[in-house]
């Protein structure tokens, strides 16, 4: 009876003798390895940890000394090290940690394209200005000529006095002032005042401040189909680079096997360049296939 009392909580039974199933590793013919590991969490519950990975053998030639150093952290297999609490030759804060990169300290960043070529400094500035021009023609602020109602003008206070002066003039200021530079030129004395990022570059600038990511659909994008399965992102980029600066080029791949699905997307900075590329590259023979190029449809339109 006493022993029965001990086990009234059915969950406690597991706690008393944690028996973990063995770690398994299975590989399917298409090269995906499924690793299942079992752990106990802080409350003593069993946690199943499944990882699906694709292993790729990469051969690298290193010096003898470097090869010796590679063995330093790997004296004990990863699958037993977390139970026996010791591992290899680690020291300091890493003493006893299993080998392999720790996700707490090491992450892989997003792909960065380093293009070596002359950098023209004026380019990005021009681009931003052209982006601003076509925004909102219907509503024009009487004070600062921005694309919003006069009542909502962020420079209402500073410009009210100036506006009174200008009322008599039939002809407005020659260049529509946009932003802080325009104000500075008019001597509104706003230098040094904090301007929130959303209003920087003038009230006419569209959008809610600066975004960390540019929207995918902002850029003129081409969809390239019947692409060779061997083509990489860089090949695609090289193929379209002659028509102008390519902002992004990517081949669509299977999420798990990383095999190309035979199509990809190329984004240009400039619509005109994208159009020439579309005309010239549609039907172009590439790696024994004839690729076809069309405009990429935005996500929501494709679904509808």
């Amino acid at each position, binding site marked *: 009876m006493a022993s029965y009392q001990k086990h009234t909580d059915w969950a406690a039974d597991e706690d008393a003798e944690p028996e973990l199933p063995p770690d398994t590793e299975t590989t399917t013919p298409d090269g995906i390895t499924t690793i299942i590991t079992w752990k106990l969490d802080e409350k003593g519950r069993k946690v199943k940890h499944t990882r699906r990975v694709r292993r790729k053998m990469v051969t690298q030639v290193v010096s003898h000394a*470097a090869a010796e150093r590679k063995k330093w952290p790997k004296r004990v297999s990863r699958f037993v090290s977390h139970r026996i609490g010791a591992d290899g030759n680690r*020291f300091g804060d890493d003493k006893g940690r299993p080998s392999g990169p720790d996700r707490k300290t090491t992450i892989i960043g997003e792909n960065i394209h380093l293009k*070596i070529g*002359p950098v023209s400094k004026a380019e990005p500035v021009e681009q931003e200005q052209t982006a601003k021009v076509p925004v909102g023609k219907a509503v024009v602020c009487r004070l600062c000529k921005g694309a919003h109602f006069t009542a909502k003008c962020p420079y209402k206070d500073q410009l009210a006095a100036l506006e009174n002066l200008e009322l008599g003039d039939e002809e407005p200021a020659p260049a529509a002032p946009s932003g802080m530079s325009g104000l500075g030129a008019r001597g509104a004395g706003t230098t040094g005042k904090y301007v929130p990022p959303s209003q920087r570059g003038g009230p006419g600038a569209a959008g809610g401040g600066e975004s960390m990511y540019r929207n995918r659909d902002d850029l003129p994008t081409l969809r390239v189909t019947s692409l060779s399965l061997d083509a990489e992102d*860089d090949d695609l980029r090289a193929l379209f680079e002659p028509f102008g600066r390519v902002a992004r080029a990517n081949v669509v791949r299977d999420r798990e096997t990383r095999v190309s699905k035979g199509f990809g997307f190329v984004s240009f900075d400039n619509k005109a360049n994208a159009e020439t590329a579309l005309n010239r590259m549609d039907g172009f023979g590439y790696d024994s296939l004839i690729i076809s190029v069309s405009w990429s449809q935005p996500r929501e339109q494709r679904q509808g």
Partner: protein
Amino acid sequence: MKPIILQGHERALTQIVYNAEGDLLFSASKDNIINVWFTSNGERLGTYNGHNGSVWSVACDSQTKYLLSGAADNTMKLWEVSTGKCLKTWEYRTAVKRVAYSADDDLILSITEQRQGQPSVIRIYRIDREAGSSQSDTPLKEIILTGSKATVAVFSPLSDFVITGHENGKVAKYDIKTGEEVKSVSPEDGEGHRAEITDMQLSPDGTYLITSSKDKTARIFDSLNIEEMKVYVTETPLNSACITPVRPYVILGGGQDAMSVTTTSQRAGKFESRFWHKIFEEEVGRVRGHFGPINTLSVHPGGKGYASGSEDGFVRVHWFDDSYFKSRPFGDLEPDLEI
């Protein structure tokens, strides 16, 4: 290229260095610890714990046997790379701002800060490569600096001179035997850098060196005569610069001061590693990614990649793509692959 982001530090990075083969990367930070990483996969091998102040500088010997570090707790320490054991501690009256190894692993140097009436001193020690912890306490030579204090220093390729960079922008060369200044380029004569020199790194063969400065320029000096050879003019104060082996580029890193970071947007902050053509002094590329000014740059000794450490506490390790090695930004003007 996909950078490997290492987040092993809680505070700003101060210096990162590759070892001679480029398979390990040492990172020093203001959070008092030194980390060592495998550059191939970003795995951390260990940490060197023991300093009680910001670690300002690290240096590794060519055998990857010993690691040298200088910190704000007024000590310089010698560590065994493979075990993380501290072998030897040298104590001073002021903080150690810079340490360096000579090319033949026989000599080391430390620069101590000028503070509390103490002058800035460069001390050169002889290191016994077999002795481990029993190293000499008495320096081979002490060079007591008058005038502007030294911020950075390297050994000349034959280990007979020390080349220093100073707070006022002076670059000077001192004889190790006599301790005397042999040559210098100083802003007082209207030459060279105009503001504090923040970093100094030798070229792969040691015949020239690059300096970065708060005066927004980086310059290449010949290491024999300290003659200015190239100038790279940027828009932001520079914290670090290095020369890439194999390809004819230099990498510069900087950004405005940590103090004014919060008032500037990331885009305007120029927190990018900037590639300049070494010969033509033209900018050829940028790599973004950091959220704060880049404090330190280091290039893979084989020219296969580079790493940057920033005020934001992250280290980013980059391996160059094929396109980098094939690039010819100025057409056929430039020579084929350098060896």
